[in-house]
């Protein structure tokens, strides 16, 4: 694909994330919003009234047959992703799929298999990969500022579920689970990005308010290089108006704490350009890197990254292989909680 050519994009699924990706694609100069699709025919009126100059289809196959596309953003509920992907791949499209890749490990594995060895660009919506503070922390860990890592502890909490909720998001058969797959998957991506694939997981999960999906979970993880870590997640903790992450890493040279708002380093002696003892890097102090923002920091960069790689035909920041690895950890957590025993990741295949 030549550099000057725009990527012709379709957006499939016009829920909250689909609307956001539609808006963001429309703001990316290298992209052309060419078609929109949702099974809810009523959304045709939304598309028309919002002024988007792209045809709407309630039938995905019809859209793919009538509109020539290079790429699609798949923002359907997780249980629908595999079927939508299979349909889109009949037209050999490059595909972005909102996280998680699928509601089950099996579906995620099939999806990754469908694109393995092919030239299609495939991306997964793990937003943290595009957020400046989290990229900064990755750089600090990769350059060994805190030295050899011993262990980490991590948590992610939000105030969302305090009673039984309805909808596919809270239905295990459709969403794949509760707080782990829907909330902690972002944190698990970060764990995978920073520390690699764990060798084993031991986990517990509980349903307090929900029927059939976990409202909280705790997991212990071990890694091949001797690193161990813990993860705690809940969507039923008061006082968190938005999902909030806290990751503390201990190493030979000191500690690194990462939250949504800051990185806090404590070093036993000066390392690289950082002084002995405390350094705080606030998100507020990070330079603006995105020319546009809607919904959340990093979303525009995420879409721009995918579009850019569609032009280059090179792998984006978070591929489906990465998405599958996150899904493997999620599956291990669920198996461990279910079977009440340690699960080795090489057995999850």
């Amino acid at each position, binding site marked *: 694909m030549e550099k000057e050519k725009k990527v012709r994009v379709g957006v499939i699924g016009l*829920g*909250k994330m689909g*609307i956001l990706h*539609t*808006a*963001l694609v*429309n*703001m990316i100069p290298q992209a052309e919003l060419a078609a929109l699709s949702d099974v*809810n025919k*009523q*959304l045709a*009126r*939304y598309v028309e*009234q*919002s*002024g*988007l*100059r792209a045809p709407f289809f309630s039938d995905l196959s019809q859209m793919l047959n009538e509109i020539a596309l290079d790429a699609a953003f798949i923002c359907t509920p997780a249980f629908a992703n595999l079927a939508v992907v299979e349909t889109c791949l009949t037209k050999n499209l490059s595909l972005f799929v909102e996280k998680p890749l699928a509601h089950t490990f099996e579906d995620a594995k099939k999806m990754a298999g469908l694109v393995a060895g092919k030239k299609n660009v495939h991306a997964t919506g793990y937003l943290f990969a595009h957020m400046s503070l989290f990229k900064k922390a990755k750089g600090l860990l990769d350059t060994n500022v805190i030295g050899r890592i011993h262990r980490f502890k991590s948590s992610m909490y939000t105030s*969302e579920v305090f009673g039984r*909720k*309805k*909808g596919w*998001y*809270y239905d295990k058969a459709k969403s794949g689970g509760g707080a782990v797959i829907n909330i902690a998957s972002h944190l698990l991506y970060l764990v995978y990005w920073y520390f690699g694939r764990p060798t084993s997981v031991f986990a517990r999960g509980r349903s307090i308010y929900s029927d059939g999906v976990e409202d909280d979970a705790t997991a212990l993880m071990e890694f091949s290089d001797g690193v161990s870590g813990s993860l705690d997640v809940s969507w039923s903790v008061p*006082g*968190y*108006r938005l999902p*909030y992450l*806290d990751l503390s890493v201990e190493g030979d040279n000191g500690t690194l704490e990462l*939250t*949504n*708002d*800051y990185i806090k380093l404590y070093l036993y002696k000066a390392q690289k350009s950082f002084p002995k003892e405390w350094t705080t890097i*606030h*998100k*507020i*102090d990070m*330079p*603006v890197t*995105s*020319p*546009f*923002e*809607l*919904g959340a920091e990093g979303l525009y960069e995420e879409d721009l990254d995918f579009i850019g790689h569609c032009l280059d035909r090179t792998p984006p920041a978070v591929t489906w292989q990465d998405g599958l690895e996150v899904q493997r950890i999620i599956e291990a957590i669920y198996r461990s909680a279910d079977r009440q025993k340690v699960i080795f990741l090489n057995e999850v295949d």
Partner: protein
Amino acid sequence: MKLDRLILGSNAFEGVSYISRMQSLHYLEFFAKEDNIVPVLEAAVAADVKTFMLSNCRNVMAALKKFARNKELTLLPVIPNAYEYAMEASEKGVLGAVLTKAKGFSMYQKVKLGLRALTKIKSVISKDILDLLLELIHFELASFEKYRLGGVILHGQLTDLALSSRNPDILTIFQDLVRDSYDLEPLLATHNFGILLPQLMEWKIKIPIMAPLNKKGFMMRPSQPECERLVQDSGYQIIAKKVLAGGRLTPEEAFPYLKDKKIDSVVLGIGSVPEAYHTFSVAKSVLKI
């Protein structure tokens, strides 16, 4: 549109902090009690800051009701309450969240707004979504009918969503609705000032804009220099927000940056009574108000 130079914002009352989770938690806990908001309102009025920008939140509305001098305030409601809709959307979808809100209308409101059909969900779905959204704006504004309004601010998420459609219709409809139905001035909040303003100029929409403007460049998109250039050259009425860069700047550090900028007003979120007196005092001194 004539606006006061200093405006009290309600972010802290809603638990918003860009600094840390601990501060957010403190705000959520402390300001959950409306009795803790009232003294901040009193301090603002005592400092002659009598314009209050707010969302339709339970604790803020309760504090407003309790505040004895509320008739002295001019309110700038930010609508819709996007946070509330976003929280609902994970369970019910975007349309479902809107419909849930609409179903909460009282019979009086339904009759008043001509929404008798809201009792029948199918009828609601068949309504044009924009019409429904406009009715929801009426609905949200109904909460403020006992107070003096100085204008109505479209929430930044909605403004920026409308901007991304590259179509002026939504903003034009909002502008006409606020002017024609309420005889008030519409304003737009945005987190994409440097992109929105040139687009508004192209669309020939002249409307006050509330946008981040601070010494650190925090949330100034696409860049701090571009936003500064537009502030100086555009001739638009500008209300600066995030002037303390989410709390990373002290008032003494923040206000000198604003001194020579062509801005009409400054919105300040305040987290305590001492902070109110200190911040407003420095602002008045530096900005010569």
